[in-house]
């Protein structure tokens, strides 16, 4: 199945076209033996999940301008038309609100227009699953206002990845206390906010966010599960205060 993966939770805008093989396609990679003539020239897919094209652009203040053209260019590079997509996976943050909403609004509308499902995935989980790491680690991203978003991951059984804690929004100074509560101590840090974290841990190289997002949703994609609504992980309340009733207009 063909999946479009989108994420706008960080300054980097991501659009990827990913092929996810259904179980029967893994047994019979071409998936065509029983129904049509053999296609000797078609490349045989080898991995259950493969990134056909991924486009990333680092532009914190232009998510709305960049995202859809970026998705169209990834589709063109993958040789896939919008109408061929089977599903969309979207990172739902946490992330600074306005840019994050652009990705979710785009994914939701595109899914609605094409009549396909939109699967929400925590953006940190996408980053974690795209990073290919076998040790406990943190994902840290910039939350602005001198705070960071943080999640902790650890290897689970059968090569799976387990979320230990998060996502949460913290001041960098509180990261050590956050780590102290974790069953497995992180030995590395990933994500665009790694520098902001100020932790004495090695920084992991960025993997494929598109791959990670689709891995995170793979089970639901393959079983055709009804997706949850793509609601942003805001983590903060709207920044407002109620006016006091007695306040003088003349004051």
């Amino acid at each position, binding site marked *: 199945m063909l999946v479009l993966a989108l994420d706008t939770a960080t300054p980097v805008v991501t659009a990827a076209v990913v092929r996810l093989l259904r179980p029967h396609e893994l047994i019979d990679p071409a998936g065509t033996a029983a129904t049509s003539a053999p296609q000797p020239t078609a490349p045989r897919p080898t991995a259950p999940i493969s990134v056909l094209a991924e486009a990333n652009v680092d532009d914190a203040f232009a998510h709305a*301008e960049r995202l*859809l053209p970026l998705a*169209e260019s990834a589709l063109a590079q993958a040789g896939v038309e919008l109408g061929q997509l089977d599903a969309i996976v979207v990172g739902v943050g946490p992330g600074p609100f306005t840019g994050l909403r652009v990705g979710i*609004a*785009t994914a939701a*509308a595109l899914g609605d227009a094409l009549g396909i499902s939109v699967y929400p995935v925590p953006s940190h989980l996408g980053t974690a699953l795209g990073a290919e790491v076998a040790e406990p680690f943190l994902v840290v991203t910039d939350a602005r206002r001198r705070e960071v978003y943080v999640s902790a991951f650890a290897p689970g059984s059968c090569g799976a990845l387990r979320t230990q804690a998060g996502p949460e929004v913290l001041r960098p100074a509180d990261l050590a206390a956050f780590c102290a509560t974790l069953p497995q101590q992180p030995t590395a840090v990933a994500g665009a906010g790694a520098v902001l974290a100020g932790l004495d841990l090695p920084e992991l190289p960025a993997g494929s966010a598109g791959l990670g997002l689709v891995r995170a949703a793979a089970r639901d994609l393959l079983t055709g599960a009804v997706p949850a609504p793509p609601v942003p992980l805001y983590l903060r309340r709207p920044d407002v205060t*109620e006016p006091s009733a007695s306040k003088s207009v003349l004051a």
Partner: protein
Amino acid sequence: MTAAAIPTTRRRQPEPLRPGAVVLGIESSCDETGVGLVRMGERDPATGQPRLELLGHQLASSSDQHARYGGVVPEIASRAHLEAMQPTMAAAFAKAGIDRDQVDAVAVTCGPGLAGALLVGVAAAKAYAAGWDLPLYGVNHLAGHIAADTLEHGPLPANTLALLVSGGHTQLLRAGDLGTNLEQLGSTVDDAAGEAYDKVARLLGLGYPGGPVIDQQAAAGDPAAIAFPRGLTGPRDNPYDFSFSGLKTAVARYVEGKRRAGEPVPVADVCASFQEAVADVLTAKTVRAARDIGADTVVIAGGVAANGRLRELAEIRCGDAGITLRVPRPGLCTDNGAMIAAIGALAIAAGAQPADPALTGNPGLPVATVHV
């Protein structure tokens, strides 16, 4: 890899110009999520403009969530737009009684408005247009308000003056060639008219929004009871600009004076006198501007156009001046998707080209930019 726009293969060729073509409009500039569907008709021989038919529209408002704050909170509005977009879209199609594959073009408000709120609508509109393989037009919210009237009363004559009054806008505009051109003659130098209503309502403890409740209270009051000031009506003032800040302060001073003296505040009289001052200034300046530019038609649009006293006084003064007055029905005065579909259709009919793939919201979109 760069973000160069490589368009995907078009599955069908839409013809948004042909009579019968359907334009979908998406609005999200403030606290209303709106989707509207408008059908393009034959051109009116007198004006050359297409007749537009409203097929249906749907609104979702986050107004209740802002009430306790006494005004629109941008972050709350943006969150609400995201949640409301798909349900509002589905309901608009259900109301219009057409299928999604009958749409020929998508129009979206790209400004002016709240930055975060605009982006939700623009992102959604770009994705719908891409998903349906249709041309997308970014349009001006202010022009949309005026275009709403054409859904009810037909194309606008070439000599049309528009008064746009709402919680966010108070403007006099030359609007005869709406699809391509909108010229601002004057605007408020401080508060919008609707904003003044909200502030006075809060002062009197009447809740939010202020427009309907003040209009209601004023019905039982004497509009001549208190002499409130008429802003920017002196001989040296710009005849087309407005100011409501001084009026709001005068009301506050009057009310606090009463309270400090331990006297009851005559709420109905305050509402009636305040409303009279607003309606008097708005209509006097509108008729003056219409005379100056030789306009034979005046359109009053925007949320405050639903105000009873404003409509009444405008009818009297336009009638005396021999000017035809047009006001859309209240449901089309507030922000909505139908008005965006309408201005989209007018812009297409006037030869507008589809928006750049990098279209985004522009909170400060100039009045004169009808489409981008």
